[in-house]
């Protein structure tokens, strides 16, 4: 599909950085305020879909191919699984354990006590899992929208020949 007029393109490229920063804020503060990996990933994917609608799918497909997006999504899934397997090596030797704040935790970065004030360095292994799941959801939803929008262009080109 083709892009829209010049006014829409200018306003989209102005609003897009603010929407992405808000989505990354919702992902990063998932253990303090309502939000987390899935919700923040949906916000960032909506901002990327807005760019796709404003600039046209042919222009967007030239900049980002879908194999790069599938590599990013696989990285997110592998990070989530490896965080679950690290619980088998350290501390309590249980699958899917909290090996930073659990009973015999190793206590690295995220190990302050939670007292009801907004301290980012709390909550053990939960912020790392939030980043992995957020990356997976962003890449997955953007790949779905991009592939479905590009599939309708090729049909028209083939039929007109």
């Amino acid at each position, binding site marked *: 599909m083709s892009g829209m007029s010049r006014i829409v393109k200018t306003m989209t490229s102005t609003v897009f950085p603010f929407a992405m920063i808000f989505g990354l804020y919702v992902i990063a503060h*998932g*253990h*303090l*305020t*309502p939000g*987390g990996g899935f919700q923040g990933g949906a916000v960032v994917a909506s901002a990327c879909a807005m760019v796709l609608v404003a600039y046209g799918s042919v222009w967007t497909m030239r900049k980002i191919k*879908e194999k790069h997006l*599938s590599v990013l*999504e696989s990285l997110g*899934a592998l990070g*989530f*699984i490896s965080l*679950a397997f690290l619980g088998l090596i350290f501390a309590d030797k249980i699958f*899917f354990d*909290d090996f930073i*704040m659990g009973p015999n935790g190793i206590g690295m970065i*995220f*190990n*302050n*006590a*939670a*007292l*009801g004030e*907004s301290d980012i360095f*709390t*909550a*053990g*292994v*939960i912020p790392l*899992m*939030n980043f992995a*799941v957020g990356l*997976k*959801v962003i890449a*997955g939803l953007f*790949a*779905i929208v991009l*592939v*479905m929008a*590009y*599939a309708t262009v*090729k049909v028209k080109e083939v039929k007109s020949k």
Partner: protein
Amino acid sequence: MNKRDFLALAFLTVIAVFLVFSVVFMFDEDLHPFGEPTENDMDQYIIDNTQTETGADNGVTSVVFDYRGFDTLGEATVLFTAVAGVILVFRRLKK
């Protein structure tokens, strides 16, 4: 077409009567009224001990990622399978 429409209307009427009957006439015994759920020990334990055991300030996130992490693993698998299926449908085979 007439027979199919008649069967569909009968099915819809049966489902509607069943749902309305089960909400209107079965309060205070099986379906608790809005605002008084059953007394649940698991949820009270989670609310009391989240800050000391997991160290998080958000109750819902600690349930999703710590107390019930297996469900999140299954959900990540479903999302991955759906994305793989959508990209598979629109593949172009080079001739």
